[in-house]
């Protein structure tokens, strides 16, 4: 989208906003029941239950094999907090010019990504990296590709306030939320102990509550893991066996049941043409041996989230998979290779082309969107839900199930 067109859209959104500023508070009521997967307790908390609760894991680390427990989950938010978070997540009022919502880069129809190699923020310029999927973030300990945030609350302040992303600021957020009767009422429902206008901490809590409700653990792979071996085809099982073999070694870092071990790994992927080298966690930690290191992403729903790697180097899952069999450091310029310590599992597994195909077939079994949340029909700001839609979606609001 050209800058000019973008600013016209922004202008139109502002007009819509003004016209509908009087959205009635009564039009919004928060759900008093939990999202799918969660039990509502007597104390009004939503507690997650999954079949993986039947298992243990070594040192309670949430990594292992087929029948291993998940890592500790972040749950216990109230239904109202989760639902308020849902409205906020899809409301463009959270951006500086009311054009973008969280869903502009984390759209449910794209497994909470935007289909881009690098996300595009409010200015129309590309950011540095790709928007990661939000499925199963309730189990993650660190956030961002370079793992620089250790909570969802601290993570979200960066995209909210970065001029390259949503471009908002605390003053605007407090003003827009505090002057909106509907939001004031919803925050009171979600935070009954609080007084006065909505606070930033309440905003962060509500969005974290919604994000941690995004659970995807009912793929065909999961059916296999729980013991129904007919859930996968022979080819997919062959792919699973390559995935966990010590030749391909995929499962050593993309470890079940979450398909990430949540560590930093230096794998030596090249940047897309023309982009400078990205040192990743080497820049955001005091650990020089993490130069070029990134957080191992979960592979759940990976078939839905092209392009791949931290800045979208690979358009297809097959290309991303094939990267690992083309040789240790094959994609790096020599001078970078000398400066990096590649992960010891990056080697030359010498997989055949057919084996790469089988791996891709297996990765397709990790798709599950049974608990996809609804996009609200309307949000309290009166703006159009979602706002600027990510590339690849035909309309501003799709995927709404209601």
């Amino acid at each position, binding site marked *: 989208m050209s800058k000019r067109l973008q600013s016209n859209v922004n202008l139109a959104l502002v007009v819509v906003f003004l016209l509908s500023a009087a959205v009635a508070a009564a039009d919004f009521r928060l759900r008093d029941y939990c999202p799918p*997967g969660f*039990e509502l307790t007597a104390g009004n908390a939503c507690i997650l239950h999954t079949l993986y609760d039947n298992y243990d894991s*070594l040192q309670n680390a949430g990594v292992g094999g087929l029948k291993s427990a998940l890592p500790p989950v972040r749950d216990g938010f109230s239904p109202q907090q989760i639902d308020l978070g849902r409205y906020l997540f899809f409301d463009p009022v959270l951006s500086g010019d009311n054009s973008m919502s969280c869903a502009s880069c984390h759209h449910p129809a794209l497994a909470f990504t935007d289909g881009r190699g690098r996300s595009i923020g409010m200015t129309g310029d590309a950011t540095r990296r790709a928007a990661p999927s939000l499925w199963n973030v309730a189990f993650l300990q660190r956030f961002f590709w370079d793992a620089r945030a250790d909570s969802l609350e601290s993570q979200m302040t960066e995209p909210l306030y970065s001029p390259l992303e949503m471009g908002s600021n605390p003053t605007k957020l407090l003003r827009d939320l505090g002057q909106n009767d509907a939001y004031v009422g919803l925050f009171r429902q979600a935070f009954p102990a609080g007084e006065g206008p909505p606070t930033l901490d309440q905003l962060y809590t509500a969005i974290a509550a919604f994000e941690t409700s995004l659970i995807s653990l009912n793929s065909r792979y999961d059916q296999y893991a729980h013991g129904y071996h007919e859930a996968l085809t022979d080819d997919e099982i062959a792919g699973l066996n*390559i995935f966990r073999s*010590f030749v391909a070694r995929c499962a050593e870092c993309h470890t079940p049941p979450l398909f990430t071990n949540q560590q930093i*790994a*230096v794998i030596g992927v090249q940047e897309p043409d023309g982009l400078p080298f990205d040192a990743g966690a080497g820049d955001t930690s005091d650990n020089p041996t993490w130069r070029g290191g990134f957080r191992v992403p979960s592979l759940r729903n990976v078939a839905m989230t092209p392009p791949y790697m931290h800045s979208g180097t690979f358009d297809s899952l097959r290309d991303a998979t094939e990267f690992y069999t083309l040789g*240790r450091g094959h994609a790096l310029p020599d001078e970078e290779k000398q400066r990096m310590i590649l992960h010891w599992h990056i*080697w030359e597994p010498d997989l055949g082309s057919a084996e790469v195909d089988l791996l891709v077939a297996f990765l397709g079994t990790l798709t599950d969107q*049974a608990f996809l949340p609804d996009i609200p029909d309307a949000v309290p700001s009166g703006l159009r839900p979602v706002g600027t839609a990510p590339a690849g979606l035909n309309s501003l609001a799709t995927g709404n199930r209601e």
Partner: protein
Amino acid sequence: MIKTLVQIVVVVALIMLGAVIGTRYASDNRATVVGDNARFAAANNAGGALTQSVGGSATGRVLEVRDGESIQAAVAEAGPGDVIRVYPGVYNETVYIDKDDLVLGGVIQSGAWPVLDGEKTLNDAILYSGNDITIENLHIQHYKGNAIMGQAGNNFLIRNNLIIDTGVYGIFPEFGTNGLITHNVLSEIEDAAIYVGMSDNIHVTSNEVFNNVAGIEIENTRHSIVENNYVHDNTGGVLIFITPGLPIKTTYDNIVRNNFIVNNNTPNFGAEGSIVAGIPAGTGILNMAADRTTIEGNVITGNKVIGILITDHMNAPNLTLDPEAEPNSDEIAILNNLMWGNGGDTIAEIKALKALSMVDDDVDILNVGTSTGSCILDHDRYPTVGLGDFGTCGFTTTADVVTYLLPEPAERREITADEMGKRAYYGICAGCHAYNVKMIGPPTQIIQALYMDDPQGIVDYITDPVKKRDDYPEMPPQNYLSEDVRRAAAEYLLTVTQ
């Protein structure tokens, strides 16, 4: 392995020489008594056979596999308690066991073994994820990855196997609790022949490992005993490691005792970039960052670089450091061992450290890096370098420690029907059915009204659903859940109140 940074240590230390010699190389802490038998408190000394809590129960059927047939077909048919007997012949397949309580055992007849042969095209011979698995009496050769790899299987028993040239590892259990590896022979493995990774409560005994890069490796693992093994002619004999960057961050309470660790001088043929590729050929025991390792009663001879090397992450080159993994080898105890003829043709870096410490003899034991709370029982027994901070052990033997294997199998958790039903209801049913709200399927309340005292009616319906309501899509069958789980979910659904 220690090259690059040992060089740095040497340079720094040489600069300091003449002024102050680093305490590690000059101090003498032998008057301090360090540690006691409390370090073995987690051991299981009840006695009985080591096999009592591991392996398949062998209470079920016997399935026979003969030359020309498929082992995997038998695994697919097998149920808990079954025994698969593989007769002599050649089997070119990858066998995966994603079920519990199975014995996969070869039948050896007149010296003829069943042979699993990967012909250098197949990745792994045997992958298992189930608990209570026995794998025995198999000759496994020519795979690219592993002979036997376990992922999160507990209570495993791997014994009496011949494993030759099977790629990266021979026997590799990972994420397992309670396992016994005994009486196996392994050779020509390009990394560790027996590699226990991220596991707890392990016993490795009476194996012969030779002509591998690493003989036996205990990595990010707690509570193991490595004993009575014949570890010879590898590049490195026995490794006790914390490898940084793994999700399990600790290694402690491991005992290495009564092994023959002999002539481990084979040139390193590890893959480029692998951690073992840095091990100098001629290393007997290498302890990196692991804590509370006890070394006793071993015969450690003829390892030309060093008998025992104790180091930390900072002294290992090309290692990605992990802020969450403690990098030092602490509370190491070296009790009495027979050490002879080690260090006779050592590497330049160790020669420099010897010069620094004014040691002329061939050195049996070297410590580089900080090692807190460590001890040696008899300081005068071995030529050592870098052990000045080591105290004298306040205990003399591990003889009273029988095993760290568990008295009862791990994870035999009883799951009540109510727990199972709740997990299935919320984990699966609730994706379409909310209590009193219309979602994809009708509300739970309506289902409750229809099936009030009839959970079996629900089970029958969800097993093979038919379209019932115009305003809802047809329900997909839930037959991937076992009958027990479907029943538990149905019963739970009828009790939900909100």
